């Protein structure tokens, strides 16, 4: 357990000092800060546009951190042989792997917190979208609405999830291919639920009866259903619409999404551990 903690701290320090991490972090901060200017195109609700745009920026850059650093964190260790000194200490391989994965997870949490602080600052400055903690009181702290905070938690789960996927791929293929496959998984995971809805039979009322009026190709429908069932569904972590409209999220919905994400992460880490245990590090 101690070795996992030491490796988490070491990995976090290493990632925190890496150029790619700063590149994504700074780029995201620029976009969040610029969300005010983007919101000027709207004549309805500037705050809503700011939230939508900023949540998109935070999500995409954390996912990029997960994918690009995830695909190199262990792959580079093996390629550059820096793993030789770690694994030849009295350390279990699984402890090392978990330390590296959770080190990246801590970096994702760190970047999300920084992005959220800047996001909160921008909203406070513009006095948009924030709500008073004690409505009606003379003086009250202004807070972010509940769905925005939950969205931040979901971004962390989603990014750690895709990091684990990326690390798993990097153990069996090259760094570039691991990144491409992870991006594909992320893309499919975000669209599979919509695709699945599209290949369902279309029903309509004909002669007063509910009937199927269009049935998509069976093979296509089976493929889409299979992808939807097997690959992760990332759309469960996307509550940006609820956040933009300040729709309160139920505890059940939140816990379901978190349990779904954590279950998948655990399964991926078990598979990655089994591969890493058998891998020849030469």
């Amino acid at each position, binding site marked *: 357990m101690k070795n996992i903690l*030491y490796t988490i701290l070491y990995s976090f320090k290493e990632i925190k000092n890496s150029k790619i991490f700063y590149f994504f972090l700074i780029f995201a901060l620029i976009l969040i800060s610029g969300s005010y200017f983007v919101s000027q195109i709207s004549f309805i609700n500037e705050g809503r546009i700011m939230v939508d745009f900023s949540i998109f920026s935070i999500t995409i850059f954390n996912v990029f951190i997960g994918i690009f650093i995830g695909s190199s964190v262990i792959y*580079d260790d093996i390629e550059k042989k*820096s793993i030789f*000194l770690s694994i030849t200490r009295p350390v279990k391989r699984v402890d090392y792997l978990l330390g590296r994965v959770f080190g990246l997870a801590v970096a994702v949490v760190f970047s999300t917190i920084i992005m959220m602080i800047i996001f909160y600052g921008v909203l406070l400055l513009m006095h948009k979208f924030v709500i008073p903690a004690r409505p009606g009181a003379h003086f009250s702290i202004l807070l972010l609405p509940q769905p925005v905070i939950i969205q931040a938690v979901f971004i962390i789960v989603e990014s750690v999830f895709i990091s684990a996927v990326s690390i798993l791929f990097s153990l069996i293929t090259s760094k570039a291919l691991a990144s491409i496959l992870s991006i594909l998984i992320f893309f499919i995971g975000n669209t599979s639920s919509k695709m699945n809805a599209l290949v369902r039979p279309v029903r309509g009322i004909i002669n007063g009866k509910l009937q199927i009026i269009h049935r998509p190709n069976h093979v296509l429908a089976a493929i889409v259903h299979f992808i939807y069932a097997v690959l992760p569904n990332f759309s469960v972590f996307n509550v940006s619409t609820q956040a933009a409209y300040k729709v309160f999220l139920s505890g059940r919905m939140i816990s379901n999404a978190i349990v779904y994400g954590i279950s998948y992460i655990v399964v991926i880490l078990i598979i990655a551990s089994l591969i890493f245990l058998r891998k020849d590090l030469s």
Partner: protein
Amino acid sequence: MIEIDNVTKFFREGFFGIRKNAVENLSLLIEKGKVTGFFGPNGAGKSTTIKMIVGLIRPSSGVIKVNGYDSGDFRSRIGLGYLPENPSFPRGLKGIEIINYYGKLLNVKVAKNEIHEALKISGIFYAKDTYTHKYSKGMTQRLALAISILGNPEILIFDEPLSGLDPVGRKEFKDIIYKLKDKGKTIFFSSHILADSKELCDKISLLVKGKLIKNSSLADIEKEAEENKPVQAEYSTPLEEYLYDLMLRNKTEN
């Protein structure tokens, strides 16, 4: 003590996965408190053998035991220090941060002065606060040496410890190995530089094309070398000449 019992390691190569033996039926006993030199030409299987001992790769068949534990078991690496060939470290971390991390992984409390002592012995103390990506090859090698001797391990395994070092660095490295030898450490080091043999070793093992050709004490091999003096005069001592000849013959015979 390290026991290597009838170990074979093969890799699959090419599109059809053709089997290629890197090490073949290797049996070797690395005795406690002795310095064993592991020699052989490039591609002989020295590094593969060392990687199997330290648990980086698994033997295809046979058993390797370190301190009574299978080499795949993490407990076999308690009291074992390893210096890899051409070590490297991740970017963005200072020498002191890296050695602190490796010290914590030893599962024993390593005091700050012990870390400083290891850095001083290795001659890299002055650069402890420098980022390792700014280190030269020799400095990286020294930091890796400091890490390998941290925690006072009983067994030290060095893979080509002198490669890439300048003459001064080589001399200093040899002096460190002498000091460790005087402390009664079990040292197993690989090299393809024959001149390293006489100066450091109590015992010599010669590996060619994955097969163990010689495994005797230095005195015995020296005696053999005197008796079977080869005709070429490439090297300065009969021992070097003899080992060179053995490598050459076995390479062409196979």
